[in-house]
């Protein structure tokens, strides 16, 4: 039986168990639900959970141990000389056997034939055993739960508790994934800093990560000073924020305070569509439309603009993050109580005075939160920069020159052939770590600001 079929079967059994539990509780209640501690449906859930969860647990444990156990016993059947191989070679051998079984390895080597047969039998065996055990666990759980149903049995409390554990588990998955990502980046970064000193990475002014992979290749010796990348990121993000913050904030103010309901209901979704455009589309808009335009404009003024410029990337990125600023600001401006506006109007404040001096200060935490969110989005943005700002790691503050950013370099470092022990590849992880820390700090700052000032007008 396939595992997905088994899962489906377990679900069906638990649906059945729900009815069994519900019916049992109704029998015990003798027609009066008041006699029961909980409503009959809770006894249903209780029985269903007992039918489903132990079987599911068994399934997971089985999946965890199945392949090591099977692989080990397959190795045991091999001749003596294979068994004495190193672990790596054993792994290769096992892979060979698995591939032969699935037919992707072409001809089966004659000396492995017996092992392949054995593996196939084991797998079939294991599957049937699992199915049998899981289904019997499900039924045993169901009958166990059914036998425990009494008039005073607190099924509701136990179901609620299970729900709580389930929710906790879900949030743990999200948190643990984050921790896992951080750790994987951290360990690779530590390996990188073993080869390149931290001070060179953080303070070096030269970025040129190409290293000769073979002795006959012509390449530079490699320089891993990340300062040009940091400044490039900073430059492009600043341009983006200079574009996005005023436009986003002002459109939020217009939408929240001045626009008619009809206009607002059309304009707000339209503005939010900006956030839904794939960044790659923004990228070629920047590279094919904005960059040549800026170049032409620069030429008219006698300025020499390179065809890939920080300005083009920054401008388009600014357009992209407008919705982050405007949508959040709009929500927070709307959340400012009408009574505060009334208070200002009643003192004779004009609409713009009211907005500037009362509404915006009251909504400031949300607005700052929106801006910081937009900033971390800008720092993490890759595609627009790849396409519009180039890859040259220039250390410059001139927005008309080509620059590159941290994310763009991560992409270039990891594209193509990889050697996972070369500093070139490992540098990507170090850059990722820096990026992660930067956006983490921004997000913590945003949360802190929002929390600190939130209650002021409530």
């Amino acid at each position, binding site marked *: 039986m396939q595992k997905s079929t088994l899962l489906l079967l377990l679900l069906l059994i638990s649906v059945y168990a729900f009815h069994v539990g519900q019916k049992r509780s109704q029998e015990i209640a003798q027609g009066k639900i008041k006699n029961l501690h909980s409503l009959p449906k809770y006894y249903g859930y209780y029985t269903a959970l007992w039918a489903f969860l132990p079987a599911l647990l068994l399934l997971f444990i089985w999946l965890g141990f199945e392949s090591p156990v099977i692989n080990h016993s397959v190795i045991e059947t091999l001749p003596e000389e294979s068994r004495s191989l190193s672990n790596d070679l054993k792994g290769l051998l096992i892979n060979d056997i698995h591939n032969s079984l699935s037919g992707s390895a072409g001809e089966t080597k004659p000396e492995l034939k017996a092992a392949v047969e054995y593996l196939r039998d084991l797998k079939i065996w294991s599957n049937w055993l699992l199915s049998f055990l899981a289904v019997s666990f499900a039924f045993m759980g169901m009958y166990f739960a059914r036998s425990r149903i009494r008039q005073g049995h607190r099924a509701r409390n136990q179901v609620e508790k299970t729900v709580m554990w389930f929710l906790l588990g879900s949030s743990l998955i999200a948190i643990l994934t984050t921790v896992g990502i951080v750790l994987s980046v951290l360990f690779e970064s530590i390996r990188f800093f073993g080869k390149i000193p931290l001070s060179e990475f953080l303070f070096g002014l030269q970025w040129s990560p190409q290293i000769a992979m073979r002795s006959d290749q012509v390449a530079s010796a490699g320089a891993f000073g990340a300062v040009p990348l940091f400044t490039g990121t900073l430059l492009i993000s600043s341009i983006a924020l200079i574009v996005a913050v005023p436009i986003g904030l002002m459109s939020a103010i217009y939408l929240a305070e001045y626009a008619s*309901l009809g206009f607002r209901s059309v304009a707000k979704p339209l503005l939010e569509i900006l956030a839904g455009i794939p960044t790659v589309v923004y990228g070629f808009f920047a590279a094919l439309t904005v960059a040549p335009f800026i170049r032409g404009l620069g030429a008219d003024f006698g300025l020499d603009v390179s065809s890939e410029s920080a300005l083009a990337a920054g401008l388009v990125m600014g357009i992209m993050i407008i919705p982050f600023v405007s949508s959040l600001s709009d929500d927070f401006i709307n959340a400012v*109580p009408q*009574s*505060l*506006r*009334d*208070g*200002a*109007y*009643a*003192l*004779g*404040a*004009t609409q713009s*005075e009211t907005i500037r*001096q*009362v509404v915006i*200060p*009251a909504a400031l935490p949300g607005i700052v939160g929106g801006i910081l969110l937009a900033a971390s989005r800008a720092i993490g943005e890759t595609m627009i920069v790849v396409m519009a700002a180039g890859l040259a790691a220039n250390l410059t503050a001139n927005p008309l020159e080509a620059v590159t950013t941290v994310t763009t370099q991560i992409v270039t470092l990891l594209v193509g052939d990889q050697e996972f022990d070369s500093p070139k590849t490992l540098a990507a992880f170090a850059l990722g770590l820096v990026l992660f820390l930067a956006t983490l700090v921004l997000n913590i700052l945003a949360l802190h600001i929002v929390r600190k000032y939130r209650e*002021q*007008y409530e």
Partner: protein
Amino acid sequence: MRQPENIPIPASFSRDQLQTVGDIFVENPRIQCRNVDVYYGEKHAIQDVNLDVGRNEVIALIGPSGCGKSTFLRCLNRMNDTILGCRVNGEIKLDGLDIYADGLDVVTLRAQVGMVFQKPNPFPKSIFENVAYGPRIHGLASDKFELEEIVEKSLRRAGLWDEIKDYLRHPGTGLSGGQQQRLCIARTIAVNPEVILMDEPCSALDPIATAKIEQLIDDLREDYTIAIVTHSMQQAARVSQRTAYFHLGKVIEVGDTALIFTNPRHQLTEDYITGRFG
């Protein structure tokens, strides 16, 4: 004030008669309202209201919920302008000038007619900034010292100075409900208005804070004209000189507070103040 027992008991007006009874007019009025109608979209919220408000008097507007007393109050400084679909017909004059005339500056009007709301609504700023806000936007103080003087005077007038003089830089929202409401009153009198409108100013406050505000209203009568909407008839009796009873968007009866509460002329007024409905 006239003694109620000296007045002959008038015939009680029946419930069907919705003409205003009592003394609509006063000598030398501060506010005159003539044939005022207010519509919220299709809804006719205020119907043909005629009412005068005298100088240095406290007039209480009472009546069951939804009778239009708050709506009427908000007409007097054009706060209804901010409500979508609200239309005001008729004539409202402040010191003889039509406040709904074309070209009238709402900003100036609201500086003359201040308002205190049901729920205290201090700005999320410091206590000082809350009071200084009005004088600032109207340019009432020429320098910092003058501004501080206005703030102190207003806070003293509102009876709040002694409690908070050491905490002027603290947020206004950190005060207790009663203090917040007195801060809002201080904020209102800081712009030196002629009229103060109060929309159930004590409904969110405990009895002690309410007593303080009532005392304050009585003190403020020396310098200001006050119109107060209230659900508490005891409060109306304690603080006001005249009372107007609103019913379904109409003014049913206006007159001296003492008279209205001891000797209502209209059946509906009598029903309301004796607690038969509302």
